[in-house]
């Protein structure tokens, strides 16, 4: 993974490879652009259809074409998806799931990054006996299918009284975020010159002083990458949400699935698509705002699979 991330970091002028530039409108160029254009349409189509469907009335959906723009734009489906659509007995819309997801994501991101950054720092700077054994287990652990561990974790959470709580889910996210984040931070801190750490020790700084005063301020970019990575991953999580929380605490993904795939009642496709878009808003916003950093994050986080 390390090589991938470093390559991502290379500034774009150095990027240039491939055959040398040629005239702007050579035959080959036109072909490349047309292929890319067609592919871009394929990738964008689902988003476009989601958006169009969510702005149409049900009647128009039934008679019209999913690719056609709405003849009459309505925001009704969005309002309904957000505030009044029912899941089970609750009829307060996706807003419930949204706020649950916020309540899950914010502390999970915070704790997982706090724990992992300290871990990565301890592993790279304060090598103590046995540290690498645990780190190796941790990295191998990243490849174990979650299915193997989910039930015993239910048992453990029940033992400590966190099963079904948001607290329990936060703990689970912290635990499963640990391998990749620890790796991310360990690699980052390993690239910090060792002499800096030595200088700080000569200056009388101990473990926590060095972490908070020296390392933390230096590591801001990698923290941003970690936040992007974790926010997206936790917001998009479904499996842990459905297992470790009760229905009233379900995150947005779970609630969305329950709304759209519920077998009762009339299928309101426009509301469904509005709801789907609503749960994509947060990760998409992060994606479009963070740009290159997101790429760095997934290149590093791809290990998580």
């Amino acid at each position, binding site marked *: 993974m390390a090589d991938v991330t470093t390559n991502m970091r290379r500034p774009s002028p150095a990027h240039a490879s491939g055959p040398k530039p040629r005239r702007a409108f050579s035959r080959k160029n036109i072909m490349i652009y047309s292929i890319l254009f067609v592919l871009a349409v394929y990738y964008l189509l689902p988003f476009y259809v989601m958006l169009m469907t969510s702005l149409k009335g049900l009647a128009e959906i039934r008679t019209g074409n999913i690719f056609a723009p709405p003849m009459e734009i309505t925001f009704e489906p969005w309002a309904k998806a957000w505030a009044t659509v029912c899941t089970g007995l609750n009829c307060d819309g996706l807003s419930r799931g949204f706020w649950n997801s916020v309540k899950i994501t914010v502390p999970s991101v915070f704790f997982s990054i706090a724990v992992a950054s300290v871990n990565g720092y301890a592993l790279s700077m304060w090598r103590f006996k046995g540290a690498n054994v645990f780190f190796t287990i941790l990295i191998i652990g990243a490849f174990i299918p979650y299915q193997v561990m989910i039930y015993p974790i239910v048992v453990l959470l029940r033992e400590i009284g966190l099963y079904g709580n948001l607290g329990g889910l936060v703990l689970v996210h912290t635990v499963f975020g640990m391998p990749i984040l620890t790796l991310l931070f360990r690699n980052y801190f390993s690239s910090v010159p060792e*002499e800096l750490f030595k200088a700080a020790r000569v*200056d*009388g700084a101990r473990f926590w002083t060095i972490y908070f005063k020296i390392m933390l301020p230096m590591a801001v970019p990698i923290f941003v990458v970690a936040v992007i990575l974790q926010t997206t991953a936790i917001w998009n999580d479904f499996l842990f949400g459905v297992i470790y929380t009760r229905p009233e605490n379900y995150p947005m993904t779970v609630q969305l699935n329950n709304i759209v795939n519920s077998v009762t009642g009339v299928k309101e496709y426009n509301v469904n698509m509005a709801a789907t878009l609503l749960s994509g808003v947060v990760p998409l916003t992060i994606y479009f705002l963070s740009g290159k950093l997101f790429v760095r994050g997934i290149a590093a986080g791809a290990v998580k699979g």
Partner: protein
Amino acid sequence: MQPSVSIQNLKLDFGSVSVLRDLNLDIGQGEFLVLLGSSGCGKSTLLNCIAGLLEPTEGSIHINGNNVTWSEPSDRGIGMVFQSYALYPQMTVEGNLSFGLKNARMPKDEIKTRVARAAEVLQIEPLLKRKPAALSGGQRQRVAIGRALVRDVDVFLFDEPLSNLDAKLRADLRVEIKRLHQTLENTMIYVTHDQVEAMTLADRIAIMKGGVVMQLDTPDVIYNKPANKYVADFIGSPSMNFFDTVLTTADGPQVSIAGKDVSLAGYDFTRPGVSGDVWFGIRPEHILTGEMAGAAPTQFEVRAELAEPMGAETLVWSSLDGTALRFRVDGQMKITPGDALLIGFDPARASIFDKVEELRI
């Protein structure tokens, strides 16, 4: 007087690799000691042990009589300056200087005075509010020295502090460090690759090889009377010429080179009376040429194979008795390859080593 730093039987292993072996070293109060040696010989490792950044496998380290072998770096009364400066990038110069003092919970006004004083000594007052990124290499290294200075330490440790600087700055800062040592009068241990630095700065030089000190003495003795062939070869550039020969004592000490006997009258024997197979070493600058050669008791004619004019003098590559030979001639002499030159040896400036342990005879 009690030594400032005393290292006893120090051993350090990285796993199965033994980096320092049974090292003993006493450094006097106010002494400027230079650790010199080829890359990987354990200089930084030794310095890190003294600083408390590495734990020795065996042995002990005393500073001012206190056993500090297991103390925290900050409790040892040492300050350290690194090759890469190691300034805290997010702090201003002032922050860098005061970081150690803040960690020691020193009162604010005391910190202020000390920082001001150090800045004055090092002439970095105008830079106090800048971040390290906005400083030149020389300024950064000054700040790094200042970081040790403010802490008012007994022992300064330098790990190749000038290696990252260009030649001119290096010379300037070298003088400044020397001056600093004269003003502060505290102990300094200085690691370097650079022989010129070592020669000009040191009160004593310790030449290290493979985790062992090969010789510890004043620059003068190290240069003129190297204790063994390694030191003789290591010090001096270009390095000493060595002839593989036999030392006989029957008709007074003499060695035989290219079939001629070279008398060693005037050589100051460390071990008089020893004879047998030896290395006869003579520095390029101690080979007599021109008129001086004519006056030498034994003379040789050699052919110049290559000449490297260096301005004031010219370095001539040649060979004698199958041994490559380098010597210096006056820069005014024009030498072309193939020229025949007369040379001679001044035995008083030679170095002779036995071939078993390669120690000075």
